[in-house]
């Protein structure tokens, strides 16, 4: 079983859109996939039409008193299950603070038999929860907007990993919401691709089909399979999958 996290401490960079669409692509390719919506706002759960509610809330989960198995919901797609968000996740930070650093990693180990891939959709913050997530993951995937400011957050993430002494975690970046007509986007992407270590070249374009996910409440690959963003997410998944083994 592999674990990947879609992470950026900034909001609105396309984390949730990525988590939803990558999970969908992975499941379509035959991997038994679980997406865990860790953001108390529950956008991922919304996209899958599942109530953002978990029996017993985050507290019981962290304490190990909930069987994750009982909280999982099947999505409308083969091979794809969801662990929904819950409003109580807003204080997961505090809950995890009382636990060992590897608490989350331990919580998900029983799921190994059932899933080939776990995807965390992370809330935008840099915190106790983040370090728990990083320790539980094989790969950290950071969506970035093609702006100088957005790229600078990467240094902060690296610093955080170093300070927390988190090793063996693959860090991968890619650009999301790319507008090809903008010269600034093009320039930044070219410059970054040339020197960025662990950068994945598949870009996700800025596209109305992604915005429509909120109306359709489904991954783009489901309701608009032949559009540019759907194909880009598929390509992104292919690249990531290659680097997972």
């Amino acid at each position, binding site marked *: 079983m592999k674990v990947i996290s879609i992470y950026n401490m900034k909001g609105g960079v396309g984390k949730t859109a990525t988590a939803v669409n990558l999970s969908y692509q992975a499941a*379509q*390719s*035959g*991997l*038994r996939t679980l997406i865990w919506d860790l953001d108390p706002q529950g956008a991922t759960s919304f996209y*899958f*039409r*599942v*109530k953002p509610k978990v029996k017993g809330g985050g507290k019981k989960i962290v304490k190990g008193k909930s069987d994750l198995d009982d*909280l*999982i*919901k*099947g999505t*409308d797609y*083969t*091979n794809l*299950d969801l662990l929904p968000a819950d409003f109580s996740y807003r204080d997961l930070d505090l809950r995890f603070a009382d636990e060992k650093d590897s608490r989350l990693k331990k919580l998900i180990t029983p799921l190994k038999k*059932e*899933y*080939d891939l776990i995807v965390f959709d992370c809330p935008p913050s840099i915190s106790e929860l983040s370090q728990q997530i990083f320790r539980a993951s094989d790969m950290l995937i950071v969506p970035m907007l093609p702006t100088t400011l957005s790229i600078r957050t990467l240094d902060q993430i690296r610093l955080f990993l170093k300070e927390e002494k988190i090793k063996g975690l693959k860090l991968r970046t890619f650009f999301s919401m790319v507008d090809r007509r903008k010269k600034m986007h093009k320039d930044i992407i070219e410059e970054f691709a040339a020197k960025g270590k662990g950068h994945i070249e598949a870009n996700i374009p800025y596209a109305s089909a992604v915005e429509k996910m909120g109306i359709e*409440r489904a991954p783009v690959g489901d309701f608009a399979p032949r559009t540019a963003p759907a194909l880009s997410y598929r390509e992104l998944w292919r690249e990531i999958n290659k680097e997972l*083994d």
Partner: protein
Amino acid sequence: MSRETVSYQLADTDTALDIAKLLAGVGKVETASERSFKLSYYDTFDWRLFDAGKALCVSQHEDQSDIQVESLNADEILASMPGRLKTGFADDFGSGRIRDMVEELIDVRRLMARLDLHALRTAMAVRDKEGKALFRLNLESIEAAKPGSRARKALGVRLVLEPIRGYAKAAEKAMALLDDSYQRKTEDRAPFLKGLDLIKVTPGDYSSKLKLHLEPHMTAQQASHLVHLTLLDTIERNEEGTAANIDAEFLHDFRVAIRRTRSALSQLDKGVLPPKVIAKAKDDFKWIGQQTNDMRDLDVYLLDFPKIQGSISESYRDYLTPFKDYLVSKQGKAHAQVQRLIGSARYRKILNDWRHYLTEGHQKSSRGEDAELPVKELADSRIWKAYRKVMKEGGAIDEDSPAEMLHDLRITCKKLRYLLEFFQSLYPAGEIGKLIKALKSFQNVLGEFQDTEVQSNAILQLGRDMAEAKKAPVETQMAMGMVADSILQKQGGARRAFHVRFDAFSTDEVKDSFKKLFKSRG
């Protein structure tokens, strides 16, 4: 991930609309338009997936194609991926769950088309207010056909309810309603199995294991005939796949049956069948076997090619490509030779005459002096004798013994092995099984010892042939030399292993078992 499905028996007249009306209180029933699917089922010639309780099918709807592995016991889909079969070998599945499930089972065998199911399916989903699916329903009417055939047989109409994880309550509510109106199909057999029934195919009707049931009260002659008829069946059943070169196992099984026949002729039939009959059959089957040697050797090289390549440093591996091309073209020629053999009048006559002799011809001919002996007595004495010979030859081998002695021992062991297998059913399964296993692991090292030498010499010879035909660049020849060397390096290890394994085979425990089972008290 998949929850257990429940299915209901429906009548031909039941429609999706009836179901939708019935379940209207559970949620919003969404009915898709009817779609036709073709489900093509595959298994190896010897039914390896079936034996493991699985079935593999390619499900096609318009241009959408998925490969699915199903469980035969629970009638559920264990794994699914988009795609279709290209060659029928394990490589078709890329990497992933289906490959993990299937590769170990099918190994080098090819999947062959076994059954087509044509399904008309109306997919329904029952959703909550948010539009989330709570469970799914499939109304299916299925027909079965032989692969590629147009003649179809109806398998019936059924409704399958697929619960979705985390929404059990809704599914239970629906089941309660359905139970009131329809018959639930308990112990429903997978449509694959029912379909096979309808096209009159018996799964598991071939196995490469020798399935022989001898009775202790049979005479030696009756047993001999039964052994040979069983082997003859195996030979004939593998002809088609060998001629079509479907996979290398057909020829392998074919050759094992020929070898067993020859072994039975010299080990079992002496004194049982008339000497003249034995002599002629020995010549005939030797002749058949010989013409398949080249193809088998080449099959083995090709199957082992990834290993051969892996035996030398990565930087030289590409130089072996001309070697592989050469093997492929030689295999093609060797295969043509085998095709000619199987199509030849002489071959056919040998097999037909042999069958005729075994079924009725023997009544007119004389019989050997031991023909009327109870088979158990014959088995005891022949096995005991072969065992003694193995122990004698093995015991005489020390560190300095020439390689020939190991080669001879290998042949003696093979004879013992075949005898044990022929007569297996006359002895308690557990006990004789243990002895066969002990012998087998000991035979493996002997085999490796011999193969290393034969193979490394053969590779040098192939290198010479290629050079002569101007098909081997210098680099290829050098790389082949490395391969030959790395193979030969293993021989030392096999020789050391021999002593360890022979000691394990010489323990008092094994000795006592042989004595107890086979040594006559008279």
